[in-house]
């Protein structure tokens, strides 16, 4: 067995063709992660009765569950119930036409929501109590204080943590190869099934992931640098 550069090039080309799938999974997960994660963090931060306790238990337990295991379970449930779902919703599609990429969206979104909500929750704590009191003192309502005073101060503090969440999400996307979704990793391996030499495929996939992560991280770091002054204002 040797490392064939030619095979590597073919694998790289295949992998790149499916980069948009990996990117799509990443961005969908991050979108829901940020939006719903923020809501979860707010509910928990303001200790809204019942919902807050339920979310605390859920987030604590769910963080103990590896993404891989979650993915396998959801995929199993999906394949088990998809026929029923189609029938109940009267959808005009065939079972074999439904792509289980929705399982990938769901699993990674849920993982992103829990981890990003924790990032936001930590950032909330960094905003001083007097900021809330000052907001109320000038006659803002609770929601106005949150939206106009607290969240703008909390976001810059959350950014370094969010970057870590983002890197984690990109890495998570490669796991979906195990449920057969065609993305960078599986696509890079397509040529390998002909050559029976897999190293080239995996190296190609690794390079694509690595570059993808580095590019997104670099963009995020620029943003992080720009907001540095706000962060220092708040944490000092």
């Amino acid at each position, binding site marked *: 067995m040797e490392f064939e550069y030619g095979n590597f090039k073919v694998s790289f080309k295949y992998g790149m063709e499916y980069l948009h799938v990996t990117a799509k999974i990443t961005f969908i997960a991050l979108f829901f992660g940020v939006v719903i994660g923020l809501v979860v963090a707010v509910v928990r931060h303001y200790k809204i009765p019942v919902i807050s306790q339920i979310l605390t238990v859920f987030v604590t337990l769910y963080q*103990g569950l590896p993404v891989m295991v979650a993915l396998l*379970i959801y995929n*199993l449930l999906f394949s088990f119930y998809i026929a029923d779902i189609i029938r109940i919703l009267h959808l005009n599609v065939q079972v074999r036409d439904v792509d289980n990429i929705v399982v990938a969206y769901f699993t990674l979104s849920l993982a992103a929501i829990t981890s990003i909500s924790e990032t936001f929750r930590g950032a909330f704590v960094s905003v001083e109590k007097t900021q809330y009191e000052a907001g109320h003192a000038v006659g803002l309502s609770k929601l106005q204080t949150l939206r106009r005073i607290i969240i703008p101060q909390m976001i810059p503090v959350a950014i370094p943590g969010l970057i870590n969440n983002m890197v984690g999400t990109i*890495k998570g996307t490669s796991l979906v190869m195990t449920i057969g979704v065609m993305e960078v990793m599986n696509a890079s391996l397509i040529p390998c099934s002909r050559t029976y030499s897999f190293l080239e495929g995996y190296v190609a996939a690794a390079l694509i992931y690595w570059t993808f992560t580095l590019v997104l991280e670099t963009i995020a770091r620029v943003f992080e640098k720009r907001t540095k002054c706000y962060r220092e204002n708040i944490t000092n």
Partner: protein
Amino acid sequence: MKNIFSWDRLWKVIPQLNPYIGVSFRIVLSGLVFGTLLGLAVAVLRIKKILIINQILSVYISFMRGTSMLVQLMIIYYGLPLLLKGTIGVDINSWDKLMFVKATFILNEGAFLGELFRAAIESVPAEQREAGYSINLTGPQVFFRIVLPQAVKTAIPAYGVDVIGMFHNTSIAFTLGVIDLVGRAKTIGIGTGHLIEAYVYVAFIYIIVSIILKLLFYLLDRKFTFGTEGTVH
């Protein structure tokens, strides 16, 4: 709808899975022990900023941070035998698959813990070192008696998160065909045609162990307070 889950099958599957919890622990343990040693070496080398070595290490760290462990595992599984045979002529094709998993975990942890330790060591203010020198301690005494204890304290929470993450990552070992919890769950599924009960129990184990680990590190962190939390006397 069909009956996908049965409690009976769950009770039956538990004793079949339990013996395989140890496989995950063994992976974590070698990652922890050798990863910590490798990480310390990486941290010290990075702090010393030796030319070339520093560049090589930052590429190594960037790769480990920027790609998933699944990719790393596969590259090591297919690539390491090739590399070792090509360079020093050692044939490791007969290695147990678990060995490749462990090797991946050690290399991955070396990078992550290396960065963690470096940040923790560099977070100790220069004055702490100077104070050590001023009372005539030697360089190694200053490092081991003053800097390291303070760095360890700083590193504990992140170390805990890292160990739990490592434990979660053991769930990818099955992709190589290693029979760990997930791997065993799959073989049970093939044998009986019922997978979900095994998966549910696997999920349960991962959640419980994660919470226990979290608690342990919380207590460890509390122990290393140096008077910064709670009241002393």
